[in-house]
C-alpha cells in the first residue's frame, strides 16, 4: 500500500491513549452490567453456602467466637463496587491496549487500523483470558483455601505471562512460513507448544469442596467467562471504532454537507 503524499502526521500517543481509556471505560461498565445480571446471582448463592458452612462450624465449636463481625462493605455495596472494579479494570486494560497498539502498529502486517486493533484485542482475549481460564478456572466465594492465596496468585500471574508468550510464539512461528496454510499450521503449533509446556510446569490447583453444588460452580464460571469476554470484545471493537473513526474524519469533512 503506497503512502499517499498528502497523508497527515501520525496520531500522537496521547490521542491513541485517550481512545483506549475511553473504550476501556465503556467496556468495563458493560462487562460490569453483564456481571451484575448474570454473575451476581451466582455470587449471592455461593456466599449463602459460605455463610451456612461457617455458621455450622460455629455451632459445632461453641468455644470459638461465634459473634458475626459487621462486614466492612455490605452486599449492596459490593454490588456497586462491582462496577468500580470492572470500570477501573477496563480503563487500565484500555490503556495497555492503546500502548501496545502504539508500539506494535508498524509491526502488524496489515494496512487496516481496524484489523490491527481487533487483532491485538483478540490476542489478549486468547492470551490473558482463555489460556488462564482453562488452567485456573475462576472460583466463586466459598471455594478456595485462604492459606494458598499467595501461591494461587503467583500461578495466576505466571499463566497470564505464558498466555501472552503463547500468542507471541504463534505470530513468530507463522511469519516463518511461506504459504497461507503453513502459516496457519505454524501458528497453532507455536501456540500449543508454549501452552502445553506452561500447563505442565505450573501446579494443578483444585480446591473445590466436594459439597459445593456442581451446577452453581459451572454457572458461576460461565458468568465469569462471559464477563471477561464482554470486556475484551467491547474493548477491541470500541478501540477499533475510535481509531478508525478518527482516521476517516478528514475524508468525511471533505464531503460537502
Amino acid at each position, binding site marked *: 500500500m503506497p503512502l499517499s503524499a498528502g497523508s497527515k502526521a501520525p496520531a500522537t*500517543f496521547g490521542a*491513541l491513549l485517550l481512545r483506549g481509556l475511553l473504550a476501556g471505560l465503556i467496556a468495563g461498565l458493560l462487562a460490569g452490567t453483564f456481571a451484575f445480571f448474570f454473575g451476581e446471582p451466582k455470587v449471592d448463592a455461593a456466599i449463602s453456602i459460605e455463610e451456612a458452612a461457617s455458621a455450622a462450624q460455629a455451632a459445632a465449636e461453641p468455644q470459638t467466637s461465634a459473634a458475626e463481625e459487621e462486614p466492612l462493605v455490605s452486599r449492596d455495596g459490593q454490588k456497586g463496587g*462491582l462496577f468500580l472494579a470492572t470500570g477501573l479494570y477496563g480503563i487500565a486494560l484500555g490503556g495497555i491496549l492503546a500502548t501496545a497498539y502504539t508500539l506494535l502498529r508498524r509491526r502488524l502486517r496489515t494496512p487496516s487500523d481496524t484489523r490491527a486493533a481487533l487483532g491485538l484485542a483478540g490476542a489478549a482475549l486468547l492470551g490473558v483470558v482463555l489460556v488462564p*481460564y482453562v488452567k485456573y478456572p475462576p472460583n466463586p466465594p466459598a471455594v478456595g483455601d485462604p492459606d494458598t492465596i499467595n501461591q494461587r496468585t503467583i500461578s495466576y500471574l505466571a499463566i497470564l505471562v505464558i498466555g501472552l508468550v503463547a500468542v507471541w510464539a504463534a505470530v513468530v512461528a507463522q511469519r516463518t512460513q511461506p504459504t497461507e496454510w503453513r502459516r496457519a499450521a505454524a501458528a497453532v503449533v507455536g501456540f500449543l507448544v508454549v501452552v502445553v509446556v506452561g500447563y505442565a510446569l505450573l501446579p494443578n490447583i483444585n480446591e473445590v469442596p466436594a459439597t459445593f453444588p456442581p451446577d452453581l460452580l459451572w454457572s458461576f464460571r460461565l458468568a465469569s467467562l462471559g464477563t471477561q469476554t464482554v470486556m475484551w470484545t467491547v474493548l477491541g471493537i470500541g478501540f477499533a471504532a475510535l*481509531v478508525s473513526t478518527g482516521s476517516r474524519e478528514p475524508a468525511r469533512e471533505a464531503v460537502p454537507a
Partner: protein
Amino acid sequence: MPKATTAGPLSTPAVSPRLLWTALAVVGLMLLITYLVAFDQGAVSRSGMYLHELMHDGRHLLGVPCH
C-alpha cells in the same frame, strides 16, 4: 518483506526512546490500577481492606484468584 504501514492520520508515531519511556510509565500506571483492583489487600491503597472488600465481586467475576 516491506512493512505495511498506513497513511491514515491515526497511524502511529515512530517509536522513539522518549515514546518508549512514556509508554513504559503509562503501562506501569495501568498495572498499578489493575493491582489495586485485583490483588491489593490494603498495602498500597492505604484504605485497610475497604477497597478490597468493595471490589470483591468484580475480582471473582474477572477470574482473579481471591481468598
